[in-house]
């Protein structure tokens, strides 16, 4: 493949190009209308809104107004979302739940909120660009560009100081200095474990072989976590630039992004970004005239949760079954094809450029001493404002759930928050004031994980939640080691028995013992952490386990075998439930209260969902 001569070959050209791009943008654009075009936005219907905006812009014949397709703004609760920015003053207004019919009003209004539309408070600041004058709870370092620039246009990234960190590293620093800077910043792996990134890099840097690899782990498999997808869809260049910096730091020429095939939009944007970066000369041979070569390839994951584990991921790239291997040797010593390899998560990489641009000292001022910086969380479940948030480490759970998330849906009681996905645990109501970082979460019996936060209310049964996670692990266990393959199967059987009301107190003890054995003996991180949801729910919600076992009741009314359906006096005798019942177990005369035959009932819930009069009780 022949590539045309790169556009930028030294640092002076980058400086000039950046200045030119900025001037051109601010000259042409007075009002910038940002349209959120992430996967969620598109699924919620952004495309027709975009079309309507373009049409009304043409119809109103305004100059200086530009429409930009941006990545996720993190406001999933109000998609489709649009932000209108005055480029000169930086003033902006964010609209939520926008419809195509609103387009005309939005274009006409500028940055003065248009009437009749849902306006959303921003709630975050950008530590790199401004002071936190509004006392915003969120600080966006990783999500700095997501929702602000067009991810498919490298010039917009360059205007945001893009590729300056790479330029600085290549021309002004030695690999050892880069490793030292990252080590000094205290950046820890954002994929879950929290291993210091700088130390990982220093291991690989110290290795002799000439061939080394940088792998970006974008195999985001934790159910309930979608921050990596949002970063890659909203700001792919930040990750590419950081991979090149990592390559320089450890002495690697090749980078690989291992990404889930289930993320088609992220893949497409990455491909565009890689192509543009090569054209500009930020990837390829002799970058910035420094003599350093680096290029990046994509590999698509084929759908295996265990491939998020670094040794399994490497096996998968080599074309094998994605089974983990025993560590040591660590990948930083012998990884892909037996060569030194670093595997870092998408979010970890997304921090690197900001650290290089602003220095380790700047980064350490945000967050806590043990866990500097910010963390992106995906808030989901029974919460009013579902979304993607980025907060400084050390923010309390209460602030996240009640401040940013605006509390529990339908005025229900908060019961627990699940963090860390299938490897994590649940945190209870009385621990809401805990400030979160890597270490406090482990103390609470959970873990950071990749950052999924599922909020649960009084209607959720914790035994059933534990069983749900085990079902997931069972399905995803690679089957290599016995504790994980068979142990989890037995755990799942015991939990199923409990949810059916067929267990005794001995089961509870066995559950505890087996969980401990699996934790101690499984081969990889997935196996060792797989009993975590069981252990954590047993410790925090023992009363629910006891209610299932001793009283044969599911307090939340979730476990189908332990609930009964009945009809109360609200029944008008409309006979809709009777018609829809698949086993014909509802009887009654027209216009009189009906009765459910509990013996014949299969507890499918069809009557409950079809009744318009709140006449079906589920207990």
């Amino acid at each position, binding site marked *: 493949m022949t590539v045309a001569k790169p556009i930028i070959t030294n640092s002076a050209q980058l400086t000039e190009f950046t200045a030119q791009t900025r001037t051109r943008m601010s000259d042409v654009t007075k009002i910038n209308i940002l349209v959120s075009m992430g996967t969620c936005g598109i699924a919620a219907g952004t495309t027709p809104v975009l079309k309507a905006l373009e049409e009304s812009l043409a119809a109103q014949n305004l100059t200086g107004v530009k429409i930009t397709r941006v990545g996720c703004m993190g406001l999933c609760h109000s998609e489709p979302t649009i932000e209108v920015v005055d480029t000169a003053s930086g003033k902006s207004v964010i609209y939520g739940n926008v419809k195509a019919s609103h387009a005309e009003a939005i274009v006409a209004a500028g940055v003065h909120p248009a009437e009749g539309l849902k306006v959303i408070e921003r709630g975050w600041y950008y530590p790199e660009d401004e002071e936190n004058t509004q006392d915003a709870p969120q600080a966006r370092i990783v999500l700095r560009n997501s929702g602000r620039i067009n991810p498919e246009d490298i010039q917009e990234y360059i205007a945001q100081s893009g590729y300056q960190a790479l330029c600085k590293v290549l021309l002004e620093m030695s690999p050892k200095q880069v490793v030292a800077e990252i080590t000094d910043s205290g950046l820890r792996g954002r994929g879950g474990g929290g291993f210091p990134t700088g130390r990982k890099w220093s291991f690989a840097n110290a290795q002799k072989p000439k061939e080394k690899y940088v792998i970006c782990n974008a195999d985001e498999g934790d159910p309930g976590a979608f921050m990596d*997808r949002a970063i890659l869809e909203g700001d792919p260049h930040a990750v590419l630039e950081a991979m090149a910096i990592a390559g320089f730091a450890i002495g690697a020429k090749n980078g690989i992004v291992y990404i889930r095939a289930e993320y088609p939009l992220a893949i497409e944007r990455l491909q565009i970004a890689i192509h543009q970066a090569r054209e500009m000369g930020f990837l390829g041979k002799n970058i910035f005239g420094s003599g350093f070569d680096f290029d990046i390839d994509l590999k698509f994951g084929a759908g295996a949760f265990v491939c998020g584990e670094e040794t399994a991921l490497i096996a998968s790239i080599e074309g094998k079954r994605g089974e983990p291997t025993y560590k040591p040797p660590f990948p930083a010593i012998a990884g892909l094809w037996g060569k030194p390899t670093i595997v870092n998560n998408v979010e970890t990489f997304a921090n690197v450029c900001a650290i290089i641009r602003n220095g380790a000292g700047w980064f350490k001022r945000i967050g806590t001493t043990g866990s500097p910086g910010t963390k992106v969380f995906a808030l989901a479940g029974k919460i009013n404002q579902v979304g993607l948030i980025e907060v400084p480490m050390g923010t309390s759970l209460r602030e996240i759930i009640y401040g940013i998330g605006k509390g529990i849906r339908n005025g229900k009681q908060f019961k627990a928050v699940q963090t860390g996905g299938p490897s994590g645990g649940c945190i209870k109501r009385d621990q809401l004031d805990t400030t979160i970082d890597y270490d406090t979460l482990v103390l609470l019996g959970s873990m950071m994980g990749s950052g999924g936060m599922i909020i649960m209310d009084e209607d959720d049964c914790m035994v059933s939640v534990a069983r749900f996670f085990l079902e997931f692990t069972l399905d995803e266990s690679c089957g290599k080691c016995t504790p994980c393959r068979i142990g989890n199967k037995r755990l799942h059987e015991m939990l199923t028995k409990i949810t059916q009301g067929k267990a005794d107190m001995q089961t509870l003890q066995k559950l505890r013992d087996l969980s401990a054995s699996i934790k101690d003996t499984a081969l990889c991180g997935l196996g060792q952490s797989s009993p975590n949801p069981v252990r954590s729910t047993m410790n925090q919600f023992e009363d629910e386990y006891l209610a299932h076992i001793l009283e044969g009741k599911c307090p939340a009314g979730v476990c189908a075998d332990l609930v009964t359906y009945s009809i109360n006096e609200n029944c008008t005798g409309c006979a809709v439930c009777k018609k829809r019942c698949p086993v014909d177990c509802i009887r009654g005369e027209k216009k009189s209260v009906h009765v459910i035959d509990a013996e014949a009932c299969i507890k499918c819930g069809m009557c409950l969902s079809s009744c318009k009069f709140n006449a079906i009780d589920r207990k």
Partner: protein
Amino acid sequence: METQAKVDEILTRYKDAKRDALIPILQDVQDSCGYLSKEAVIQIGAYLNLPTSKIYGVATFYNQFRFQPVGQHHIQVCRGTACHVKGSSGVFDRFCRDLKINDGETTRDGMFSLEVVSCIGACGLAPVIAVNGEFHAKLVDDDASRIVKEYKKAAKEGDNK
């Protein structure tokens, strides 16, 4: 015979391929043929000089690969945690009941197939399903029946035209 030609065409894109090209080849073949047929697997094995058993060993390990053709409308139900706490199992059960098939199966007329997939990362829209890649968000059980009916109706109207 058509499959063979398609696989051949894909293999020409992988010159001097080694073991690490196996998964990308399998992905491309499934993309183009819809699933991995026995013939396709044998053909790939011959090309890469790998025993068929090894290829099945790899292919069955990953969730992405299918060994049966999917239906005309492929329904994927997300089993992520957010979808679970918002009632995705009810939605899934309704699909099973209405279509009379289970996870990984295709209806006899080849019209629908059903698959439970790991989190598709649209937790803000939970519970969510995708039909041929098109998202349907914030579903309740009855929406499942409605969606099936709509597709059946559309198919019928198409027949009458």
